[in-house]
């Protein structure tokens, strides 16, 4: 039987009087690929940050591999933040950023072993030619892959990604999803990804969560993407979303 990677019971997160998340209960077995979909302000990032141990639950419990998130060794969890939050003015080269994933600290000096491991993961992510490039000279897609490389260099058991496809083009997105596919094949990593891309969630994930402050629906993509669920999550279904692919597939 697969191990439980994430086990959340009755989780609520309040910021003062504002309720960001309420009554969240779910568990995810290892090697699964969960996508979290919901409207802006629906608590997706809050949930990710609670799993990471950055936000304390107001109520309920969060367990990652059976432990409190803060007690999980840092190498077991990888995290890819939203690239808009990255300070691109920071003077750093790609290999320095990726090395932090391995050491958990900024390096002044890089041993041969660190260099080799960084090179290997950059190759895995198709970034070997950018090793010595400064991060302020990377495109959005390249920077996103650098942060993915940084998070997988430690071979995490759980990988959390917060809207990795935002602001990158379709080709970059395809590259990105190929890397995730390879990662799951090779290391059976459990993946949790926040995304606005319904189609991506439908085709790539094993489980989908529709979230709007509380869980609207949770389960296999084919069962989750119904007009009723999406309406409950978003209040309406925008014209820009091509629901046909989901509804037709469901039928």
């Amino acid at each position, binding site marked *: 039987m697969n191990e439980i990677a994430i086990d959340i019971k009755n989780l609520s997160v309040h910021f003062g009087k504002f309720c960001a998340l309420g009554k969240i209960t779910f568990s995810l077995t290892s090697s699964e690929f969960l996508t979290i979909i919901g409207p802006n302000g629906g608590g997706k990032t809050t949930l990710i940050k609670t799993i*990471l*141990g*950055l936000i304390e639950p107001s109520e309920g419990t969060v367990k990652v591999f059976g432990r409190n998130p*803060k007690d999980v060794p*840092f190498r077991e*969890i990888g*995290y890819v*933040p939203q690239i808009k*939050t*990255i*300070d691109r*003015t*920071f*003077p*750093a*080269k790609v290999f*320095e*950023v990726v090395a*932090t994933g391995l050491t*958990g*600290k*900024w*390096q*002044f000096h890089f041993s041969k072993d660190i260099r080799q491991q960084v090179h290997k993961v950059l190759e895995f992510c198709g970034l070997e030619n950018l090793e010595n490039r*400064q991060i302020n000279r990377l495109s959005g897609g390249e920077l996103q892959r650098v942060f993915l490389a940084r998070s997988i260099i430690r071979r995490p058991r759980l990988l959390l990604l917060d809207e990795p496809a935002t602001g990158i083009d379709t080709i970059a997105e395809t590259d990105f999803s190929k890397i995730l596919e390879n990662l799951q094949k090779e290391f059976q990593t459990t993946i949790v990804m926040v995304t606005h891309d319904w189609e991506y969630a439908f085709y790539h994930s094993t489980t989908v969560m529709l979230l709007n402050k509380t869980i609207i629906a949770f389960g296999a993509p084919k069962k989750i993407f119904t007009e009723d669920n999406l309406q409950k999550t978003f209040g309406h279904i925008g014209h820009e979303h091509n629901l046909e692919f989901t509804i037709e597939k469901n039928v």
Partner: protein
Amino acid sequence: MFELLKSSFAINALLAGLVVGFLGSFYGTFIVQRRMSFLGDGLAHVAFGGVALGLLLQAEPFWIAIPFTIIVAVAITYLKEKTNIEIDTAIGIFFAVSVALGVLFISLNKHYISDAFSYLFGSILLVSSEDLIYSYFLAIITIAVSIFFWRRWTYATFDSELARIDNIKVDFDNYLLSILIALSIVVSVKLVGIFLVASFLVIPSATAKLVSKTFSQMTILSILLGIVSSEIGIIISILFDLPTGATIILFQSTIFTLMLFFHKIINK
């Protein structure tokens, strides 16, 4: 004219310049990269409040200014970390309150207060051996602490959230960094004055950032610029009888302008 440079006051000034240049430019890298340049100015004015209190209490102003500035530095960090008050707002509040307290303490003081004005403009050419010992003691502490904390401070400067996820005690590290910056400012204020100390924290690091490809390069270059510009500034001021603090800063800003110019040309 060069004989002047062999005198004890010149040697003391050069030694003081070395330590002030080092301390300011080392911490400056974090201050500039974390966009907290106003912190240097703010804490220098907070130190003024501490100096004025020391003079009112007829105690050594330096020893009163240290706890006074550290408490405010910790309070600013607390407001930044634990409330939704922006850091520039927090600094602005303490800046104004400290200057107001300083003015109040001076007005209440019935004694001779020329010392207060020496803190405003600094007196690097009148540095005593005692001042030098304090300054070097602090520099040694800084180097020792930095060996352990540089990698953590740098990681948190790059991205505090990623550092927290990797189990770095970012809050503790930020308080420690603030305390050491406050200490450096108090030491530097005595040597270069309240009005000019902030530039020691900002200009060498800002100059280094223009041409550095990594944070390690920025740190080394900033320290070199901080030390070299202080020493050259002191020598020029002694040789041409110019105000020392102002000469150092104008020299630093000249280097910054040249670097900016070359940086623009190279990157065209």
